[in-house]
């Protein structure tokens, strides 16, 4: 309850942390930074509650829907703590404009949001009357998405640090491009498991045996 209201209150105050050290009035920037840190703390609170509720299921739960959701919650925790850190001025001055931020936003959108959505789909789908559901493919989808996302985010985060370090050092601009090249190649290849994961998820929800239609509907049809 406390978590809900705090998240509700703090989220809208975060926007300006995208413009730290810009011309936007310093008070506004500071407000957004404080809100970002408070939000990080709140998320720890909420996620602790969620994960403690899951006690016993394990991080890689047997039920694939639950497994998606657990990982989504963990990604949410990581991405939020990362977000709070990034909003702090010294960190922001370092990583802003680099691939670090790209990794961060993918962790939020693909890791948190997409995993939660996939978990919900995997949970609901087998209960829809007459829907096709291929459990093995959805299971594969989980591991492909998990592996691809992990590779991409770790890769982009390291790339961001490398780029930021070169920018800080005053090295000529092309040096940061040359240094980023291997990371960009890895990032490009990380798309293969991610795309494969989404294809497997789609296939898992459109192929395979049909679920049993409820008896009532059978009677109505007859």
């Amino acid at each position, binding site marked *: 309850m406390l978590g809900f209201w705090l998240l509700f*209150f703090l989220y809208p105050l975060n926007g300006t942390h995208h413009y730290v050290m810009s*011309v936007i009035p310093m008070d506004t920037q500071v407000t957004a930074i404080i809100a970002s840190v408070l939000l990080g703390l709140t998320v720890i609170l909420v996620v602790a509650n969620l994960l403690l509720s899951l006690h016993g299921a394990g991080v890689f739960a047997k039920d694939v829907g639950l497994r998606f959701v657990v990982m989504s919650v963990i990604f949410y925790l990581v991405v939020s703590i990362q977000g709070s850190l990034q909003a702090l001025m010294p960190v922001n001055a370092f990583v802003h404009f680099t691939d670090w931020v790209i990794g961060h936003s993918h962790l939020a959108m693909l890791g948190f949001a997409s995993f939660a959505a996939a978990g919900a789909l995997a949970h609901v789908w087998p209960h829809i009357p007459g829907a096709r559901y291929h459990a093995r493919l959805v299971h594969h989808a989980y591991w492909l998405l998990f592996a691809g996302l992990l590779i991409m985010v770790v890769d982009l985060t390291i790339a961001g640090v490398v780029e930021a370090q070169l*920018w800080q050092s*005053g090295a000529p*601009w092309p040096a940061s491009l040359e240094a980023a090249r291997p990371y960009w190649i890895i990032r490009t290849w990380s798309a293969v498991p991610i795309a494969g994961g989404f294809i497997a998820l789609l296939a898992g929800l459109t192929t395979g045996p049909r679920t049993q239609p409820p008896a009532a509907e059978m009677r109505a049809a007859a």
Partner: protein
Amino acid sequence: MRPSRVLRMSYLAASVAGVGFFVLSVAWLGVWPARRLADEAARTGPEHVVALTASEARGRAIYAREGCAYCHTQQIRFTQPDIARFGAPTLAWETRADTPHMLGTRRIGPDLSRAGGTRSEDWQFMHLFAPRTVVPASVMPSYRHLFAGGPGAPRQDARDLVAYLETLGRARELAGVEGSVRAVTASHAHMSGLTPAADLNAHPARTRRSGDVPALPAGDRDRGIVLYARHCAACHGATREGDGPGASGLTPRPSNLAEHDYTDVRMAQVLWNGVAGTAMPAWRDLSRDDLGSLVRYLTDPRPPGPLRHDRVQPPAEMLALGKRVYDDNCAQCHGPDGAADGFAALSLAIAPTNFRQQRLWQGRMTADGVPRVLRDGIEGTMMASWQTRLTREEMAAVAEYVFQFFRDEAAARALERRQ
């Protein structure tokens, strides 16, 4: 109240709170700062900002359409590395009329806030057409579709885009002295830790006609070779003969460095200030050690030959003829003593050569003793061809006379030490 009624009310409470929090956030972090920003922009900005011309405004639309802002920011933050690399931090009034803004979120390429005046128009065309011919490490895509077949045939889209790029940072520059003073005041008010000086207004690649060159350290020749390959070879060529892949689109063409002698002072000036009016940018973003290394590499291994002090002195009558021809035809721009300080020099877009600091290496002269420059002129500059106006003897004589100006004290000392 029964619990079920309270629960029904909770939806109402959540809705009211949701809208309320949103309104609070918009007011607190949107409306109120926007008013303060408008105040600050009015307080620190110049009396008026020059509007974009039709071509520049169209170029801005092309900049947006081609997605330039995905990889190039237009926002210099209040951080020391940003200021050192791209110039003074962006102030509120500078982007006031920029709707939609092009601030950007990711820097794959460099920030362009103050890119105006850092590169020549033909360099921009060459770069848009084939980026890697002028910046070998670039990952920028080619914008060939803005050209009709080659960098020398830009369509209107390309011309307008380059016209727009040339405006970046212009408003700040035109704000003048008052603008600078206000900018410094605004920066102080904004972030007391950083005090950008007035000369930080400009991008470090911006060319200047003149400017104080700091003393460069002696440098390391091997480092200079590496730097040359990375930054210079694209235009000046791997063998320094001015024939790199980027050279074909540039007018005047990049200097043939293998064909000239330069004093250390001259080379340092060119690197520090660029060559105004040409595609040669300034390299103030390189460290002084790196600049010193480049100077070392580009001046030290002078080709052996009948040079300098040990060369045969030309006959006195030849020098007298050369002086007569020089005083009549060359001194207006190149100056009476070859120091590029003739009365007409300042009116030239590209400064005339200073013969005291630079000369053609005589080993490279054509068979008849007449430098190619005299016969053909230099396309893209005010140096015309003299073939139709001077005889062969006059051209040879004036070349000999001009060589007398060159004073390379450092090289002379090095030569003496070696002997």
